[in-house]
C-alpha cells in the first residue's frame, strides 16, 4: 500500500529502507520526502516504521540465536 501518496512511497519501500539501515521518521522524511507535503501520512508512516523496526529486530534476534546454537553444537 502507498503510505505517502504525495511522494509515492509504499510500505515496501519503507521496509526495504529499514533493512538498509534507516531508523527514524527524520531520515524517512529527508531521504524519501515522507510526510513533507500534506502530512496526512505521518501517523501511518510512524506505524509502518515502528513495525518494520520491530520485525527487523526480531529477525536479528532469531539469527543470533541460531548462530549461538551453531556455536554450541
Amino acid at each position: 500500500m502507498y503510505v505517502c501518496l504525495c511522494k509515492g512511497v509504499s510500505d515496501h519501500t519503507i521496509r526495504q529502507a529499514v533493512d538498509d539501515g534507516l531508523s527514524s521518521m527524520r531520515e524517512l522524511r529527508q531521504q524519501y520526502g515522507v510526510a513533507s507535503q500534506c502530512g496526512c501520512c505521518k501517523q501511518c508512516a510512524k506505524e509502518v516504521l515502528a513495525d518494520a523496526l520491530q520485525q527487523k529486530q526480531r529477525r536479528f534476534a532469531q539469527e543470533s540465536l541460531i548462530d549461538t546454537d551453531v556455536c554450541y553444537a
Partner: protein
Amino acid sequence: MLGNQQVLQQLNRVLTHKLTAINQYFLHARMYQNWGLQALNDRIYKASIHEMKYADDIIERILLLEGLPNLQELGKLLIGEAPAEMLALDAKLQRSDIDAIREAMAICEEQQDYVSRDMLNHILDGQEEHVDWLDTQLDLIEQMGVETYLQSKL
C-alpha cells in the same frame, strides 16, 4: 432551520469520510482501467459516483441546518498497489465509514433529528451493500486464486 451543533458536527465527520472515499475509489477504478481490468473499473467507478451523491446529500442537509459543510478536510487515502490489496483496503475504508455513520445516526436519534438520521440510514444501506460485494470478491480471490479471479474481471 437551525440545526443542533452535535448533529452538524457528526454530519461533517461523515462528509469527510465520504470525500475520502470518492477519491480512493476513483483512483482505484482508474488503476484497474489502466491494467485492463474493465469490470473492476466499472464497478468501483460507480462506487465513487455513489459516494459523491452521498456527499451531496450531506452537504445539502448541513446547509439546510445552517451549518458550513467542510469540504477542506480529507482523511488518509488507502491506496493499494495490486488488485487484491486494493479491494481489501476498500473494504477497510468502507468498514470505518460504516462505523462513523452508525455513530452519527445514534447522535441524530438522541437529538431527535430524524430526518438526518433517515438520510444517513439511506447512505448506510448503500455502504453495507458495497462492503458485502467487496467481501465476496475477497472470498472469490481466496477460493479461485487471484490470477483466475482477475481473468474474470477483464
